[in-house]
C-alpha cells in the first residue's frame, strides 16, 4: 500500500504522541549528557506541528513533511530544531508534489533527510548524534525499497535499524553538540537525538503498518 497525505499526517500525529509520551525520558537522557531540554524541545515542536495540522489539510505527503519542517523550525529552537527541521524540509523536497509515496520514493526522502542533517550539522558517523540512528535507518530503508517493499515495510526496517543505531551511541564519545563538552564522560549514555529519531520512525512505522 502506498503512503498518501492522510497516511503521512496520521504518522506525524503518532510521532507527536510518541514525543509527548517519551518527553521525560528524553529530558533525562539530555540531562545526563546535555542540558536537559531535548524532551521538552521535541514535545513543544510536535505539539506545534499538530496544531498546524489541525488548521491545514496538506494535499500531498510532501506538503505534510513541509508543514512538519516549518512548524519544527519555528517552534523548537536548540540544535534539534534546525536539524530535524532541515531533515523534514529536504524529505519534503525529495517527495515533491506526488500524491503518494511508494517504498522507493519514501527511501529517497529519508536519504535526502539525512543528507540535510549532515550538511547542516557536519556530524560524522560515531560522533554520537542523531546521525547514528538516521544513517543506518536510511541504509535499511534503501535496502528494503530496492527489493520492492511498500512504505510500511520500508519504515519498519528503518525503525528497527534506527533503534539499533541509537543503542550503538551508548559507548561512543560525543564529538558534536553539547555532549561533546563532556569528553570521555559522555560514554555510557544514549544520545537523546538518536533516541528521538528511533522513536519517531517507530511511531511512523506503527501507523503505516496498521493501515
Amino acid at each position, binding site marked *: 500500500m502506498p503512503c498518501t497525505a492522510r497516511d503521512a499526517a496520521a504518522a506525524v500525529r503518532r510521532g507527536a504522541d510518541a514525543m509527548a509520551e517519551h518527553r521525560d525520558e528524553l*529530558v533525562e537522557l539530555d*540531562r545526563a549528557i546535555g*542540558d*536537559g531540554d531535548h524532551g*521538552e524541545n521535541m514535545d513543544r515542536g510536535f505539539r506545534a506541528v499538530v496544531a498546524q495540522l489541525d488548521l491545514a489539510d496538506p494535499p500531498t505527503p510532501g506538503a505534510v513533511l513541509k508543514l512538519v519542517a516549518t512548524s519544527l523550525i519555528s517552534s523548537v529552537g*536548540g*540544535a534539534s*530544531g*534546525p536539524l530535524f527541521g532541515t531533515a523534514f524540509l529536504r524529505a519534503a523536497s525529495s517527495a515533491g508534489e506526488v500524491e503518494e509515496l511508494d517504498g522507493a520514493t519514501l527511501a529517497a526522502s529519508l536519504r535526502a533527510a539525512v543528507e540535510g542533517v549532515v550538511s*547542516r550539522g557536519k556530524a560524522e558517523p560515531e560522533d554520537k548524534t542523531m546521525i547514528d540512528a538516521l544513517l543506518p535507518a536510511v541504509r535499511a530503508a534503501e535496502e528494503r525499497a530496492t527489493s520492492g517493499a511498500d512504505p510500511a515495510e520500508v519504515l519498519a526496517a528503518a525503525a528497527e535499524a534506527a533503534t539499533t543505531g541509537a543503542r550503538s551511541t551508548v559507548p561512543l564519545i560525543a564529538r558534536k553538540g553539547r555532549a561533546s563538552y563532556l569528553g570521555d564522560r559522555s560514554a555510557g549514555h544514549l544520545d537523546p537525538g538518536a533516541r528521538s529519531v528511533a522513536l519517531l520512525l517507530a511511531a511512523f512505522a506503527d501507523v503505516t503498518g496498521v493501515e
Partner: protein
Amino acid sequence: MKKIINAPTDVVTDALRGMAAAHPERLRVRFDPAFVARADAPVADKVAVVSGGGSGHEPLHVGFVGSGMLDAAVPGAVFTSPTPDAVRAAVGEVDGGAGTLLVVKNYTGDVLNFETAAELLEAENIGVRTVVVQDDVAVRDSTNTAGRRGVGGTVLLEKIVGAAAARGDDLASCHEIAERVSAGVRSMGMALTAPTVPHVGEPSFELADYEMEVGVGIHAEPGRERVELESADGIVWRLLEPVLDDLPFRRDDEVLLFTNSMGATPQTELYLAHGIAERFLAERGVRVTRRLVGPYITSLEMRGLSFTLLKLDDELRRLWDAPVSTPALTW
C-alpha cells in the same frame, strides 16, 4: 523544585510580561514570536545590533536592550536557542536600513538557528553579518567538540559593538570591531551549585558538599575538572591562570576585568573574588584599567563566578566608556 513561577513552560513568556511592565519607556516587548526591542527602534541609518539565545542567563540578552547596546534581543526557551523566525522578526522590526549585526554565542543550536535566520533575512535584502563569540577557555579541545562556548565575552562585545553602532559605524566596521573583541577576549567559570531548569525540575548536575566544578558552562555544561572546594585565593588562581595563558595576556597589556556572578553568588563573595583577581593580575604586570562586577551572564540560580579578560586598546576603551542606557547596564 522551588521556584517562583506559574506553569514551568510559561516562565519565559511570563517573565517577558514583567519586563514589559517594568520598562514601558525603554522596551517594546513582542510575543509570538517573542523578542525585546528598543522602544525607539528602528533607529534610522544606524546598524542594528541583535542578539539572542536561550533564556536563563539574564540579564543577557534582554536586559542589554537600549541605546548604546542592543537594538533587540531574542530569548529562546530556558537554555534553548530561539528559532529563526523569531530572530527574523526581531531584525525585521529594528533594522534601520544600515544592516544588522547578529551576535551569536557558539552553541550548535544558536549557530544553526541564527544561520537559518540570516539566510531568510538575506533573501529579504536585509544586510546581515554575524559574529560568533567563543571565549570559554575551559573547552580545550575545539576539534573533537562543538568548539569553545560563548560566555562572558558576549556581554563586553555587545556593549562595545553597540557603542560602535551608536557612533555611526557601518556594518563592515561594526563587524570588524566585533571580531576584534572576539579575538581578544577569554573567559572561564566555576560553580558551587547547579541550576534547575523549570521544565526539568531537577538540578542539572549533582555536586557533593565539598566539591566545585571548574570550567563550568552557563548551561551547567561540565568543566575541566571537578575538585575539592578551595579558598577564594585558590579559586581565582585556577580560573585566571588558564585565561591568561590562553591568549596569552602579557605583562603591560591593558585589560578589562569582568567578574561575573553565575546568578546566585552573594555580592560580597563576588567583590571579594574581584579584589583577589586584581591583585593576581597586578602581580603579573597586567594592567586592569576597566572593570565590570556583577551578575551579567548567569545560569539561573547557579552559584559560582566567571572571569573574563578583554585586551583593550584606545578605541575599545573609548567604546566601552561610551554612554549606555539599558535595564541592566547604564552609564
